């Protein structure tokens, strides 16, 4: 395992120390594993928090700050944080207007956030949750765990964070978040698995093949396919995502995220094809992000997220944001 770390058991705590050192605009509670904005949001606004297992950096802690999250609860590698810490973050960001939990749809995250919300409700905090479930690699039905939450989380955190900053109510934020969940979908593929510290060498994907519909926890994809180059991959990603989106005249906010071990030059190659594929399907790209936003340790892979965004969403997307990983106009 080729990793810049010391004791694998300290990886997450050590990384948090580095994050804190690099970003004085954050306040990190190292004991609890919670990252807050150093300057809290305006009182009277809804608190917006998220969290989950580590290994997906910059998600979530890299999106804490003005115009986005008020706090992120940082779990161990690929493991949801526990309800007590989610509760602590919830309590600390509540200024009376309630708190929104942004939860990626994984059984562990959902259950831990659920329990935290129950505890918070018991202590009188108005908590609502939105569960992001955008990964079309996974079938959604009443009897399954449903689609996983991946890249759409970033876009949702940005838009809803901006809306919270405007002073919108918890009900309004929930409705907005649900519209985003309804109109955003993602799909990823990888040329290598990720190497998880302490887990030995990862499964090798033979050259010339790819895992299609890969998750962000080293889990294998839905299928193993021949890898026929970036252009073919882009067409497949766009096909899969667009197939699961409701038809709409709205333009798209598009994100192509690297999974941690993919150089930017390659992401740009894929994105060039993605842009063309979307255009050829009549989907106008209003805004785009290309880079590492939701990763899976050192996985060589990329994932496409498309949100059909209405004017409100695009306006909120453009609002000032100042976080470690997303920053503009501030």
């Amino acid at each position, binding site marked *: 395992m080729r990793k810049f770390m010391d004791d694998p058991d300290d990886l997450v705590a050590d990384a948090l120390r580095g994050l804190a050192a690099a970003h004085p605009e954050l306040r990190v509670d190292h004991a609890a594993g919670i990252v807050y904005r150093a300057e809290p949001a305006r009182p009277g606004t809804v608190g917006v928090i998220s969290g989950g*297992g580590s290994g997906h950096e910059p998600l979530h802690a890299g999106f804490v700050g003005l115009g986005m999250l008020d706090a992120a609860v940082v*779990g*161990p*590698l*690929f*493991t*949801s*944080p*526990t*309800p*007590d*810490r989610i509760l602590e973050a919830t309590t600390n960001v509540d200024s009376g207007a309630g708190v929104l939990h942004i939860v990626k749809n*994984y*059984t*562990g995250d959902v*259950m*831990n956030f*659920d*329990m935290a919300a129950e505890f918070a409700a018991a202590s009188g905090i108005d908590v609502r949750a939105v569960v992001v479930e955008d990964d079309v*690699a*996974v*079938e959604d039905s009443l*009897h*399954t*765990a449903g689609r*996983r939450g991946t890249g759409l989380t970033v876009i949702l955190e940005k838009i809803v964070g901006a809306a919270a900053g405007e002073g919108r109510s918890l009900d309004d934020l929930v409705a907005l978040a649900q519209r985003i969940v309804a109109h955003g979908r993602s799909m990823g593929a990888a040329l290598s698995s990720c190497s*998880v510290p*302490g*887990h030995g060498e990862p499964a090798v994907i033979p050259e010339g093949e790819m895992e299609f519909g890969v*998750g962000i*926890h*080293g*889990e*294998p994809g*839905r299928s193993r396919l021949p890898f026929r180059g970036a252009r073919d991959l882009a067409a497949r990603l766009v096909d899969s995502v667009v197939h699961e989106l409701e038809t709409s005249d709205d333009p798209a906010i598009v994100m192509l995220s690297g999974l941690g071990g993919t150089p930017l030059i390659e992401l740009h190659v894929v994105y060039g094809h993605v842009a063309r594929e979307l255009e050829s399907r009549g989907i106008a790209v209003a805004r785009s992000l290309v880079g590492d936003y939701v990763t899976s340790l050192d996985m060589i892979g990329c994932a496409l997220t498309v949100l059909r965004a209405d004017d409100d969403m695009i306006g909120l997307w453009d609002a000032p944001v100042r976080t470690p990983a997303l920053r503009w106009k501030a």
Partner: protein
Amino acid sequence: MTTADALSIEVLVDWLARFAARVARDRVELTELDTAIGDGDHGANLARGTAAVADRSEHGDTVEAEAKSIGMTLVTTVGGASGPLFGTFFLRFGVAAGPVTSLDTRGVALALRAGLDGVVERGRAERGDKTLVDALAPAVDAFEERAAAGDDLDSCASAAREAARRGRDETAPLLARKGRASYLGERSIGHVDPGAQSTTYLFDALVDALRDDA
């Protein structure tokens, strides 16, 4: 061989100590099962949580208080999917047990059932979804059945243990519909569910705790 005829606070503590020791010993097995169809951390998650349970310096003075303390410790240390599930199991077990210092066979049966209900409520898994419910539910059923027939605590627990093992074995051919393994679709077939496996450890530990305490 003699066995305890009631589940006292001491047996409860011993039960969890044995569970912790077993998870620590067979952690790699859980890791490997979870690597095959999950994210490979089930061993680490449960080891962290059960060690924290075993390390508590304070204990409850009723079965309710002790089980809730166990449950809360699991909830706050395990994380992932198994934390809320094993945690909820003991939280509900404690509520059902009430402020007593020991449970008879019937009382244990009721507490186990309440624990199972909590797990199902929390995780919304049905039998056959290839989760720990596939080991836990038959175990609770078997325990209840023997208890209703008037069997003693050891034989109820032994029956539960056997049922958990059978339930675990039966997860292998299933296609997962809940938890991370469900993302694999067909690829999940042929592997035992890690949570079902750790659930058998829980009933192994219960039987041993009851026997040793006698």
